[in-house]
């Protein structure tokens, strides 16, 4: 067993002469099967004694990357490690040299990277050793998740943007570049003040000058013209500019998140870089940029770089990311309207937006709560002292104050963010339940009838007797386009009752005919209109959302009246309250 320790800076093992043919690399399933017996298949002595973390079905928890899978191990000492096993091969020798060089250089920046070691004899599959990289488990949540949770918290987003700028300067002054800045590789902790980088496959360190890049990064963060030849200390600049522009834009307009993010990018995507002129994202951000000249600067820069077909500018320009003034991130923010996603669909698509419990704990809500409590306390004290000074009667003053106290407390309780957020949660829960019920009630005959009726335009009603020539046009004017829209209505404003009767009978006839047609069809002939499949999808989505909401409700902080009173008196248990 050879352990290649790179954290110590010295290489102690001999170079193996093995070259792996691409087809011989184990795939993710083979690796997941092997890793279930760490004591047999792992080479490293410390890891061999560790426990592999599994999901509730007893299968190892897996993180899929482009050319590797990552498993999570816990050693006997309780340390968490990530074991990165490769599923695609470049030359093992080449990869080994790269990792060794990177490990040595990263010692100078221990707070942005996690310690790791390259293991020649990492994991044994099909009786053969394959190399892996063991890295200490990094703390924090991915940048994508962080932004999702803090989309309505401009201060956090700007703080994160400042941390990113700082990180890039530190890397560049050390002559290092990461090469694949993206939402899953940047782990954010301490509320956006700290970033840890993971996935070092594409890293550049001065020792690797002259080689080509092992990978070209996430397409939604890289200049479209970036190739493996772009391998220099400046290669994170474009991705940084993309992130900074996105974060600043979101800090002004959180709704951009629900409109443009699908979990694979931070607003901008590769096709936006290819054609910034016609891109809806660029358009939307341009609209927001009118409010902030620094954001406008970033956006202009990004657009200019995108127009440059070679992408060389993104690497060589001394400063491609406009620097922001020192006080920009700390500066006073405008009063913030907590942005709630507007459309349910968009909300679901964006991973259900910001969690309710998170919203209670958000800086915005906490600040409001603090201010509210102090305002109440201040008013109460003022009332008491004013009464004492003016009336002289202690008893009367205290009585009035007690009444005022209960009144103030009741008013404050209604304004308490926790209560308001809880009622929003309950409303959401109720709505989701109702929708799911509605969704499940529909059966396939109704679907079929709806589908058939939606193919009949209202113009066809013109053929009926007793229908005025302009009725179809009026129906269209009301947004009723097909016979399906006329279903289940008792009447229509602006349509004569006898005309409405005729229409109603017509729709009824159509429904009957469609239902009869459906029952005549053999089972396998029954069409599968998109609505049926769509309903299934929607139901699945709603079910998922319902589970999420139930979980939220379970972990929601106590919003009771007693709790609020306790907060008012500074969190003391309520038995000791003087009133």
């Amino acid at each position, binding site marked *: 067993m050879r352990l290649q320790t790179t954290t110590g800076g010295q290489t102690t093992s001999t170079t193996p002469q093995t070259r792996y043919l*691409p*087809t011989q690399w184990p*795939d*993710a*399933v083979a690796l*997941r*099967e*092997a890793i*279930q*017996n760490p004591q*047999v298949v792992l080479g490293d002595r410390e890891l061999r004694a560790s426990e592999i973390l599994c*999901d509730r*079905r*007893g*299968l190892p*928890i*897996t*993180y*899929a*990357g*482009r050319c590797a*899978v990552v498993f*999570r191990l816990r050693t006997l000492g309780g340390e968490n490690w990530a074991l990165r096993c490769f599923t695609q091969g470049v030359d093992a020798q080449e990869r080994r040299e790269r990792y060794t060089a990177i490990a040595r250089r990263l010692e100078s920046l221990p707070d942005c990277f996690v310690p790791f070691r390259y293991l020649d004899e990492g994991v*044994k599959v*099909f*009786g053969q050793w394959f190399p892996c990289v063991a890295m200490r488990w990094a703390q924090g949540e991915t940048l994508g998740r962080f932004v999702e949770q803090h989309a309505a918290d401009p201060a956090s987003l700007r703080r994160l943007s400042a941390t990113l700028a700082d990180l890039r300067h530190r890397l560049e002054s050390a002559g290092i570049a990461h090469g694949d800045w*993206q939402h*899953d590789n940047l782990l954010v902790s301490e509320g956006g003040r700290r970033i840890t980088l993971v996935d070092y496959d594409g890293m550049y360190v001065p020792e690797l000058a002259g080689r080509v890049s092992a990978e070209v990064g*996430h*397409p939604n963060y890289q200049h479209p013209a970036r190739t493996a030849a772009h391998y220099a200390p400046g290669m994170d600049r474009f991705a940084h500019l993309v992130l900074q522009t996105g974060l600043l834009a979101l800090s002004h307009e959180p709704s951009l998140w629900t409109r443009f993010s*699908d*979990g*694979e990018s931070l607003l901008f*995507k*590769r096709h936006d870089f290819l054609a910034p002129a016609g891109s809806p994202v660029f358009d939307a951000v341009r609209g927001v940029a009118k409010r902030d000249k620094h954001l406008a600067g970033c956006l202009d820069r990004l657009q200019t770089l995108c127009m440059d077909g070679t992408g060389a500018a993104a690497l060589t320009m001394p400063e491609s990311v406009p620097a922001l003034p020192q006080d920009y991130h700390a500066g006073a923010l405008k009063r913030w309207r907590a942005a709630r996603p507007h459309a349910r669909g968009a909300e679901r*698509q964006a991973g259900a937006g910001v969690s309710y419990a998170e919203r209670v704990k958000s800086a915005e809500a906490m600040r409001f709560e603090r201010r509210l409590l102090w305002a109440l306390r201040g008013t109460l004290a003022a009332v008491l002292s004013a009464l004492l000074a003016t009336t002289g009667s202690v008893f009367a003053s205290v009585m009035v104050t007690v009444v005022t106290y209960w009144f103030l407390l009741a008013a404050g309780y209604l304004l308490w963010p926790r209560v308001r957020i809880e009622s929003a949660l309950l409303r959401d829960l109720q709505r989701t339940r109702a929708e799911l019920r509605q969704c499940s009630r529909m059966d396939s005959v109704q679907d079929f009838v709806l589908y058939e009726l939606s193919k009949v335009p209202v113009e066809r009603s013109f053929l009926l007797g007793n229908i005025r020539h302009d009725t179809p046009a009026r129906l269209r004017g009301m947004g009723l386009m097909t016979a399906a829209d006329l279903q289940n209505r008792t009447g229509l404003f602006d349509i004569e009752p006898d005309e409405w009767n005729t229409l109603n009978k017509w729709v009824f006839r159509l429904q009957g005919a469609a239902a009869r047609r459906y029952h005549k069809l053999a089972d*396998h002939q029954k*069409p*599968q*209109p*998109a609505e*049926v*499949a*769509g309903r*299934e*999808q929607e139901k*699945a989505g709603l079910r998922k959302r319902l589970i999420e909401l139930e979980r939220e409700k379970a972990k929601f902080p106590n919003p009771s009246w007693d709790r609020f009173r306790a907060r008012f008196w500074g969190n003391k248990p309520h038995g000791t309250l003087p009133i």
Partner: protein
Amino acid sequence: MPYTAEINRSKPTAFFFLIDQSGSMDDPWGMDGTKRKCDAVADAINRLLSTLVIRCAKGEDVRDYFQVGVIGYGGSVKSGFKGALAGRQFVPISEVADNPLRVEQRTRKEDDGAGGLVERMVRFPVWFEVDASGSTPMREAIETAHGAVKAWCELYPLSYPPAVINISDGEPTDGDPSRAAAALKEVGTNDGKVLFFNIHISSSSKRPVEFPDSQMGLADEFAQRLFEMSSVLPPRLVDEARKEGFAVSEKSRGFAFNADLRALVQFLDIGTRTAELR
């Protein structure tokens, strides 16, 4: 350019498997007599479902990049999923990951490095179960797939087009499936037509043919018909197949004749590689 759409959670892609469960699947595999064909196919499909789940896994969170449907045909056409997913047509991959029929304990024999073999236990999730009886209604199965995939494409017009993968060991008993296959291949999204792959698995020990680009060398009329039915590989898949060591050309089709188990697993793997996932 077709077959280049980015796959993400709002624009997932789909895989639809048609699996022969007729009586003849009970016979032993041509290359490896110890295994029945139906067992081997069930193993390959279960392994592939694991692969698809892992491709979308970020920790305990499985991202819905894919939707998967399985139907079996033996005697009649029926849903391939059982248990919690029974009767479902397209199932998001996160639900697939959450609802295996069971997790089996299997033994794996492995080289102990000293010339001997050691046995160890591994956990193997199972979604699709072995079944082998009745006739081979392939035409009907393809028609079912046509209906399902058409509805799917109406729902996700911007997605990477779905792939339909048909695994069979013999001739259909319900007539010529060519017309049904042609209709199926006409369906598509804005990003391209549905990809239809066919895998013929063998009882004989004839030399396997994978990704052929002409009918030359295909043993019988039925093999030629299956070749005709299969889609031409999009350029990206040609590259992927070449990377795995197959001899392919621009005209290669998604067809494997007399495939052995290794080829079957590899073919399935290549057939489900789509635009790049991150």
